[in-house]
């Protein structure tokens, strides 16, 4: 938490009050996001319960290697952004920029793997739940529902990633203009919370999509 900034807006009693309000506001927003994604996770619970075999047949058609690499990438990105925050707390703007740039590049890498490679493969294998869906027979219905969850979940998460990348880029630009110091870095904290939350959502999506349905 930033200790103090030099100035504050008129509606706050102090710079500390302003910083705490910004951070609390982001936490409140994230609490609503938990419910947003919670509804998605509930559809998984409900749909898989009634279509276990079809869901598992769908999960076995996903690309485990790309999913796992993407998980490692996102965890690394979140760690590196948090390290950048620790650096600016110590007043090291240069290291903050470097950490944010690496976190941003890892985020781009995630999107390329997910949408540039994995989604393209999924479409070419006819795994999009449309008229020429690849899995037919008694498991077809459950597998279709699984792939609706897969495409919806990864698309919504991807949109959040794009929003996060814009925010991380904004932090890099502001840091390059020397707008942060050990006395003022509230936006870095706020964006860091969002970036880690996007990581958290993927931590849950990863086993739901790639792991639960796999196995011998």
């Amino acid at each position, binding site marked *: 938490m930033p200790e103090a900034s030099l100035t504050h807006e008129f509606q706050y009693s102090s710079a500390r009050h302003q910083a705490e309000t910004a951070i609390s506001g982001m936490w409140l927003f994230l*609490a609503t996001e938990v419910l947003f994604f919670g509804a998605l996770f509930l559809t998984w619970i409900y749909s898989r319960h009634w279509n276990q075999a079809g869901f*598992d047949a769908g999960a076995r058609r996903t690309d485990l290697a790309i999913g796992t690499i993407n998980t490692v990438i996102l965890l690394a990105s979140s*760690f590196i952004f948090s390290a950048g925050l620790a650096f600016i707390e110590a007043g090291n703007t240069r290291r903050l920029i470097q950490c944010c740039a690496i976190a941003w590049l890892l985020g781009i890498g995630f999107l390329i793997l997910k949408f540039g490679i994995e989604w393209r493969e999924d479409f070419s294998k006819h795994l999009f739940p449309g008229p020429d869906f690849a899995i037919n027979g008694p498991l077809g219905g459950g597998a279709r529902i699984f792939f609706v969850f897969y495409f919806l979940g990864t698309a919504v998460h991807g949109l959040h990633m794009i929003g996060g990348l814009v925010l991380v880029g904004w932090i890099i630009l502001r840091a390059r203009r020397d707008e942060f110091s050990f006395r003022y870095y509230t936006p870095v904290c706020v964006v860091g919370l969002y970036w880690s939350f996007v*990581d958290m959502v993927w931590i849950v999506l990863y086993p739901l999509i790639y792991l639960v349905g796999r196995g011998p």
Partner: protein
Amino acid sequence: MSQRFRSLLLAWVLLMVLLAIEFGTSFLPLDRSARPLVLIPAVLMVAVVGTIFMEVGRGPEIVRLFAVAALLWLSMLLGLGSLDPMTRIDYPVQAAHPR
């Protein structure tokens, strides 16, 4: 700074270990209905990210309130939402005979 960096690094290593456990357990010969147990390491990973990367313990009290409220609402959503599929008993329907 180095203390904070060390704890972040430790958290990242812990996350990698949990990921490896999760990955490994997904190949265990578990019953289909028991397979959601694979999610346990994911729950621990979320807790690590929340406490160390997001520093939920730091900052104003209201941050903890929002975090606890989010967990409470989520547990109500998932708990009440899964009550029906988990408790419903399906009775076989007698096939209709053509006249």
